[in-house]
């Protein structure tokens, strides 16, 4: 099989591309968590605001990724960053918002109201309630949102190769332009494996971070 031979001969390059991919997705997810979780918490305080924010986030997410890249290029060209790393990160951050905001919001809204009443009745402030009760209980669902976002972003980051952001998508784009099935398959397999591994790692992280009192099967 030519593909296996190709993979064997290009392991260092595959590794470099994988790191590029992880770096691109990682940095955008960290930014997305830093914006998405606080927004998700904030909108629990107003139903009307929550509806608006969630609908806008959902609508933005329906825009095809390559179209979003396309829309960003002319805007960012003004600061000389039309293609490359920055537009890719911005697009990924935008895409990651919906799953993270939605899951944070839903999870906190689903916390049993009697727990909230007990917490307030015992004299917890808003921040203490978040820290001791709401966030720990919401955590598994929030991590699921992050999982969705990571899997989605690994897929979008593969397409970002077309705006010069590198990553594993490069194998696919070269494979297509050079009609080289070896590179095509290498890229497809590598990016799929990365997505699956990331998904399972976050699943493990969720189990690890969830309080034993909340696990369904101890």
């Amino acid at each position: 099989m030519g593909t296996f031979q190709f993979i064997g001969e290009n392991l260092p390059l595959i590794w470099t591309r994988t790191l590029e991919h992880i770096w691109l997705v990682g940095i955008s997810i960290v930014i997305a968590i830093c914006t998405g979780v606080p927004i998700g918490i904030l909108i629990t305080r107003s139903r009307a605001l929550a509806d608006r924010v969630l609908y806008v986030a959902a609508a933005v997410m329906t825009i095809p990724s390559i179209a979003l890249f396309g829309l960003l290029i002319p805007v960012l060209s003004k600061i000389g960053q039309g293609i490359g790393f920055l537009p890719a990160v911005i697009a990924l951050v935008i895409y990651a918002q919906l799953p993270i905001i939605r899951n944070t919001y839903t999870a906190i809204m689903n916390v049993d109201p009697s727990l909230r009443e007990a917490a307030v009745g015992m004299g917890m402030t808003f921040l203490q309630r978040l820290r001791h009760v709401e966030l720990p209980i919401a955590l598994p669902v929030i991590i699921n949102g992050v999982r969705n976002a990571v899997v989605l972003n690994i897929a979008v980051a593969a397409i970002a190769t077309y705006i010069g952001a590198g990553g594993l998508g490069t194998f696919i784009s070269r494979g297509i332009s050079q009609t080289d099935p070896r590179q095509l398959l290498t890229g497809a397999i590598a990016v799929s494996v990365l997505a699956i591994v990331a998904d399972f790692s976050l699943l493990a992280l969720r189990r690890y971070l969830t309080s034993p009192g909340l696990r369904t099967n101890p």
Partner: protein
Amino acid sequence: MIRLDRLTKAFGSVTAVDGVTMDVPSGAVCVLLGPSGCGKTTTMKMINRLITPTSGKIFIDGRDTSTLDAVTLRRSIGYVIQQIGLFPNKTIEDNICVVPDLLGWDRKKSRKRAAELLELVNLDPSVFLRRYPKELSGGQQQRVGVVRALAADPPVLLMDEPFGAIDPINREVIQDEFMKLQAELKKTVVFVSHDIDEAVKMASHIAIFRDGKLIQFDKPDHILANPIDNFVADFVGGDRTLKRLRLVKVADAMQVAPVSVVAGDSLETAVARMEANNHTTIVMVGPRGRARGFLHLNDIRGKGGVVGDHVETLPGLINVNDDLRNAVSAMFSHGVTWLACVDDEGFYKGYVTQRGISQLLGASYRE
């Protein structure tokens, strides 16, 4: 201890609580009672300011609570709710120590206290401290709920239908445990309930609410004996006299220092004692005064011999610390009209009769 002064809460055009004034003395268990929507829960939640009063004041230990910060106030008041509200992400130990931790108490000290408190409600600390709420039964969870409210040793305890979601058998047990705990800790408790039986059992004071107004505030026996109007009479139920049986101890209803005989007395002596006191029966006691049996006047009149040869076994005994409900129940189940009353050691202390009980209950109606 807790004084409500013309306390009023209006939600829009609806007045949920309307000018309630009452004084809950220190160490009292005050049950707020009434049908749903009568304002009892709103009244209670204004005490720890989960609901802010529209007008009126609340004083705890003479201090106007509106001058205190709501969070500080709440940490000084224990709070138990029907849904229990144990935090599922925390162990039992950490749940109990929530308020001590919020107050920044020494961790070791508060953990030690958590263990002591668990023992008070018959939960083994070595088993339960490390468990999570989901690993406990409903009844165990509610015990922890009560213990959690007591952890920071607040002088005041608010309880919102705390035993409402527990099955009837466990509810009785937990109520009894709570009474024992309360006898020891002597907190001032405000307790919301819609269950008149629970109120009669637990309360030192009952406040009956209707449409936001405080209708009657009194000791349970007085409310049962003298309901202020038809609403209260209906609410406490047509069987309110039977309910009162619960509130009277056998010791308070029995005939004390009764005459008795011992095994060696002659039958003539027994007959003479019965006739002298106008009785048709007499109890035989042992050498140190324990109730051993009884004789009936008709069975021994004119016979010779000693008491010990003719004695019959007592159909039933009742402890002086039992309530009259149990006494009456024992009378019906044994088909007798009187019962010998003994103390915990079995010493004969007196007797209760059906006639005596009805006179006692009747007397307070005529007052």
